[in-house]
């Protein structure tokens, strides 16, 4: 799986499992926080999805807006194609 595929899977996970049809679907550049897409519980589920995919735990101090605001930022920050 490369970064683009990871991004697509992350977007699909959010749209299919977290939004429950509420609001417009999330895209790669959708801010997950300004539109209140995520709450504290769904944030944990996204985090678990990403940690499971990369096979590592992400330290709390790395979860900042610059890295976590959008699906494409999450992928760029935490997914490695190598």
């Amino acid at each position, binding site marked *: 799986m490369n970064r683009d595929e990871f991004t697509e899977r992350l977007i699909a996970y959010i749209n299919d499992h977290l939004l429950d049809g509420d609001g417009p679907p999330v895209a790669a550049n959708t801010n997950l*926080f300004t539109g*209140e897409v*995520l*709450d*504290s*519980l*769904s*944030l*944990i589920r996204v*985090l678990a999805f990403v940690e499971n995919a990369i096979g590592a735990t992400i330290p*709390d101090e790395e*979860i*900042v*807006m610059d890295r*976590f605001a959008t699906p494409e930022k999450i992928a760029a920050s935490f997914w490695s194609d190598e």
Partner: protein
Amino acid sequence: MTSLEDRLEQRAIAGGARPHESEPYLSEAFLESVEHFSSFPGLAVPLDGATGAFHAPATCYRLFRDVSSRRLDGRLVSTVTGSCRRNEKDFASSRLPEFTMREIVFIGGGDEVAEWRAALMQSEGAFAAELGLDAELVQAQDLFFGAAAVNRGKRLMQHLLGLKYELVAPIAGKPVAISSFNLHRDFFTSRLGIEVAGVDSPHSGCVAYGLERWVEALRYRWGTDEDSWPGEVRNLVGA
């Protein structure tokens, strides 16, 4: 301390807040409804005896309890003060088991709550500076979240969204939070069924003052003899 407390109330009223008198203790059912026990395990202190009541861990809880299931005619700005107790023995030995907290609570639209908090962060930082305190505004997180996964989410969300700021001032050479500036989003309003006329999905926020800490910060800065404090400072705190 009483004079500073009075001055803070006057400042709150001048800013548009209405004083709120309230029954000081909270029921277990109320604390359960705002997820206090799951978010902050072991923090609440029960009253002596099998009363089912708890000391308030924060004074804003009392106001939220009093406006539960109510439809407000418009935005609400209220100030409430009182004694708080928390079981904080695991966090720092210097923390007082009982302390006085004045709070100002704002309930209204999300944008106006955020603007209100921003204005208070500026005005109260300036007030601390006028008092000669070397205070600094810093982003913060609640220390007391429990270890459950959902509490990690609450803690991360608090940080990501900048929901909590603290005004920290030196006491005994260490930075100590003397006030906090908090956005709750719709946490309380949605769980407690609080509605505001003309506002979809109202938000809330609060500003808290730890009275004993403000006094300690002033004493650390100017000395324990209040009569020797600069006249301007004494005037500002009503000493």
